[in-house]
């Protein structure tokens, strides 16, 4: 008599402790072995791409905060760079702005990686790492708050510059925090890297070859852990990244453990970049000299009729761009974040397409987990570092 074997379909998510938001996975299980995994997305769709078609370029910046809400400044940067490229003012951005943008986006990378490590470790059961990571992340959100006024939805970068200069004394604070960071990374490593259980849970789990990763379009640390040496900060520099001396960590294990190691190394490299940027930071203007694009300073608005007119025009109508299409990709913490803008000459983009790294990386999930165990699904969701705000947009 043949044994009565049936596969069991379970619904993992959208309400599940470790699907990192509202990801739904339909898992077909044979015992504990995953036969088929189908990600269902769209539970957090807010139509940011469509909304942006009815908002001026300026008004879309706060919407980008809500894409990858764990790394808001990276989204701001990607969008702002795209609009600047469309306007053709990329070369007019003052040096101080570039430096501050680099400092803030690298802090964002640290922030995003800290949340990733926290959740990844928690998923695998090491809950103490979660709180240690959040302790450091708290320092970064404090810095965020002092710089931009919000802990997560920063809305700090502007087309042509920044919303405001760094507050007094913050440079020192950033330096102190960043210098303490390598010791904290050591602490996480002490709890995880050498631990046999951690190694057992991550080595050889969720393997994806370099070819498969490139075919799918996986970017970021997940790609670099498969042995592909590709980092937009170095290979297609923006924002003056060519001035900084940093390494791109690459590993060839293709598995969860190496993705973990790559991200930890990236945290150390971010620290290096921030320290260099802080050293190079000089006083200077924080807005480009483009009166038709950037808002004039407040005191000019009341005292100078020309500024007042610009102010009213920019606020009410926005600024117009030349018709055209541009693509700007940046190395966001999770991979290549791209903004593709089609302008029709009005103050609104005709179409904005976002290339979210999480969305593309998620496509690797089925082939990483099929044939593996249920517990590996959790580890792989964690290691891909997905954020549903960005996937569903």
């Amino acid at each position, binding site marked *: 008599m043949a044994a009565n074997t049936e596969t069991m379909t379970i619904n993992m998510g959208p309400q599940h402790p470790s699907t990192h938001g509202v990801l739904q996975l339909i898992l077909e299980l044979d015992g504990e072995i995953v036969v088929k995994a189908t990600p269902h997305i769209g539970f957090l769709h807010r139509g940011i791409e469509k909304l942006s078609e009815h908002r001026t370029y*300026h008004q879309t910046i*706060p919407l980008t905060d809500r894409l990858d809400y764990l790394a808001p400044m990276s989204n701001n940067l990607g969008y702002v760079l795209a609009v600047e490229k469309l306007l053709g003012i990329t070369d007019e951005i003052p040096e101080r702005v570039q430096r501050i943008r680099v400092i803030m986006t690298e802090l964002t990378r640290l922030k995003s990686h800290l949340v990733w490590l926290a959740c990844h470790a928690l998923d695998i059961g090491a809950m103490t790492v979660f709180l240690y990571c959040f302790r450091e992340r708290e320092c970064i959100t404090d810095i965020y*708050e002092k710089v931009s006024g919000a802990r997560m*939805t920063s809305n700090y970068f502007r087309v042509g510059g920044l919303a405001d200069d760094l507050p007094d004394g913050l440079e020192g604070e950033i330096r102190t925090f960043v210098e303490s960071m390598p010791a904290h990374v050591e602490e996480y490593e002490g709890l995880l890297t050498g*631990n*046999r259980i951690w190694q057992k849970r991550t080595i050889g789990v969720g393997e994806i070859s370099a070819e498969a990763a490139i075919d799918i379009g996986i970017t970021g640390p997940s790609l670099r852990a498969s042995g592909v040496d590709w980092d937009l900060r170095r290979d297609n520099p923006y924002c003056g990244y060519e001035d900084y001396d940093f390494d791109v960590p690459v590993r060839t294990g293709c598995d969860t453990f190496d993705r973990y190691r790559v991200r930890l190394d990236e945290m150390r490299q971010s620290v290096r970049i921030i320290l260099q940027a802080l050293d190079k930071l000089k006083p200077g203007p924080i807005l480009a000299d483009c009166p038709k694009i950037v808002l004039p300073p407040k005191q000019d608005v*009341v005292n100078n009729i020309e500024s007042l007119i610009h*102010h009213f025009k920019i606020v009410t109508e926005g600024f117009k761009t030349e018709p055209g299409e541009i693509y700007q990709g940046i190395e966001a913490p999770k991979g290549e974040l791209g903004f593709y803008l089609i302008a029709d000459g009005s103050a609104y983009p005709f179409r904005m397409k976002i290339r979210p790294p999480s969305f593309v990386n998620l496509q690797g999930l089925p082939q990483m987990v099929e044939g593996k165990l249920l517990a590996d699904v959790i580890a792989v969701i964690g290691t891909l570092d997905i954020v549903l705000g960005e996937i569903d947009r």
Partner: protein
Amino acid sequence: MFKEFAKGLSITLKHLLPGNCTTVQYPKQKLEMPPRFRGLHRLIPTPDREKCVACYLCPTVCPAKCITVVAAENEAGEKYPAVFEIDILRCIFCGYCVEACPMEAIEMTDAYELANFSRDDFHFDKQRLLKP
């Protein structure tokens, strides 16, 4: 193998010692908000009226379209907002209204405890926005 286990255990044990606690006892003990903090809005008053001149810049720039302004003229012939309402449930606290205001008549305070019981309580009209 055992060395690494022991290392992990020593890290957690080290944190057990007093002085490592980072908790802020929130309702009892509150953090001081930095000056740039974007909390609840406030209309800045002058001695006899509000500073706002109802120029409509803030409802125009607002990405969430949560500000309603109706302009009127007072006896002295000055423009003032007869209605100035913010729907906090729609507000995304981006701070654009403050940035857009040419009169510096609106600011964002450090009030962040905005929970309330009914939807109507989130409609902030002029009187509520003028309160310090």
